[in-house]
Every structure is written in C-alpha cells, then in structure tokens.
C-alpha cells in the first residue's frame, strides 16, 4: 500500500520559507498570490495489506519521526 503524507507548519507558527517564497513570487510578478505555506511531502510504500493497520502504522510514523508535533501538523492518504 502507498502512503502520501503532507506535513505543514501549524497555524500561527511562523513559516520563514513561505514568507520568503511569497515575497519573491510577488517580485516575479505573481502579485495576487498570498498565504504561501511551505511544508514537506513524503511518499512511502507499506507492506501492510489491511487498510486499518496501514493507517495506524502511518500515523505512528508521522508522530514518531516524519512530523515535528511541536510546530507541524500532518495529514496522509493511503492508496492501494
């Protein structure tokens, strides 16, 4: 099974990357872009066959390693 994980800065937490990128998008002429947030995107393959097990496992991986719970939120999707 394939997992796609989206890790984003928590609401209210400063996102220096997003700030810098938004600024340069503006100077590149993309004036009407805003609320740029930059996070991480993780793809991985799991042996697990049962959806529930895979969900549990992925969630645990996010909490233990992939996301930094102090400043980041995460979401994930599973596909066969």
């Amino acid at each position, binding site marked *: 099974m394939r997992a796609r994980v989206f890790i984003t800065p928590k609401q209210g937490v400063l996102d*220096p*990357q997003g700030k*810098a*990128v938004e600024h*340069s998008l503006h*100077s*590149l002429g993309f004036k009407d872009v805003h609320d740029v947030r*930059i996070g991480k995107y993780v793809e991985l393959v799991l042996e697990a066959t049962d959806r529930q097990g895979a969900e549990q496992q992925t969630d645990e991986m996010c909490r233990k390693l992939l996301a930094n719970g102090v400043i980041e939120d995460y979401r994930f999707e599973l596909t066969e």
Partner: protein
Amino acid sequence: MRWGVVTFPGSNDDHDTQYLLDHVLGQDVVALWHKDRELQGADCVILPGGFSYGDYLRCGAVARFSPIMEPIIEHARAGGFVWGICNGFQILCESGLLPGALLRNRDLRFICRPQRLRVEETGTPFSNQCRSGEILTLPIKHGDGFYIADPVTLEQIESNRQVVLRYVDASGRVTADGNPNGSINNIAGITNARRNVFGLMPHPEHAGEKGLGGEDGLKLFRSVMTAHAEGALGSAGAPTAVASGL
C-alpha cells in the same frame, strides 16, 4: 583588472572575498548590490558564499531572480568571467549558467573542515596557476554540496574536461572517504563548456593568508588575474592586454 563581488540578501562571505581581493591581493574591487542593474565595469564577477534568501525553498533558487543576475548572464554570454563560490555555485546552477544541481549533503549535516582537492584541469582561467594533479587544501563549509547531473550531462562535462576540482582523501586519491558530501565523481568544482563560468563548493577566499587556512586559495584568484592579463576574454568589452594589479 576590476573585480565585482555581489551582495545578495543573506550573502555572508561577500566581505571576506572583498577583503582578500583588496587587502591581500591589492586588487580593484567593487561591491555589487543585488538590486543593481549594471556591473560597474567588473571583469570578473564573484557570487559569494552565504545563505542568499536564507536558502529557503532551494539554495540559490530565489537569488537567481535578482536584478543583478541579468547583467551577469549578459556578461557570461559575452565571455566575461563569472565565478560562484559555495552559495554562488548553487545560484549559477539554478540560473542555468552551469549544468547540474546541488542537493543536501549525503549525511544531511552541515560540514565545516579543511578539504583536500585535486586539480583536474588547468586549462581554465580559474586554474591556470595550478599544476595538473596538484593537491590543494581549501576549507569547505556547506550543507548542500552534493553535486549531481543527469548521466548525459555528466558524460559531457567529464569528456569536455569541465571538472576543475575533485574531493580527494589524505593520500590524494578520489575515494568515497575523501568525498565529504556524496558528490558524483567527487566533483567539487566545474566550469561551463566555454570555461568562462566557474563554480565550486570549497572556499578559496578562506585560504588566502598564512595564518588563516593557508594560501592555496590565492592560486585560483591569481589564475583569473593571469588570464585577464593575457587577454583572455574578461570584461564584456574587447579583450584587454593591460596587466593591472599584477
């Protein structure tokens, strides 16, 4: 000859590069600001090390769009000397003036240490004062120095002898041991096909005084001075034979 050193927001080694050129080599240096639109007659433009725009998103990705990059790209097209050090190398790759790209170091850690390098090609304006096969010691200090290029490009830069410097181990051999960041073929510095644009991860500007990391770095700067004096294309104008500052 005249040197230009660019300051992008987040450049850190700009002052050090100016200091070396001015105080150690007695060269004529102008400071170029990233918002400038002309090079004030610089024959060789240096894009210094640092963390332009915080290196957010990708190292050098944002700096490449600074206004100053337009005249620099012009200068390079006209055969003028353009030299990127560390972050400057990353900017040159991002802007397409040099092939390939730089990824995060293999072990994902910033590394600062003296590094042994082997001179692979002396037929460039940046290495003509070195002996082929000579071993130089220059400091490295970067988190994203893992050079890669697709197989075709790699084959080209190797066969055109565009690789100027490789990382080597204590015994001067090209080995995994001597490779600090994972770079393919231990590549530490390359030129473009025309050899007037040069990028490297090590810091020659931090090896220009005996008491501070040795003087191996001076060879690269003196190479440019020689090339310029010998009338290799320098300033965007016609070749000049005036050996100023030598």
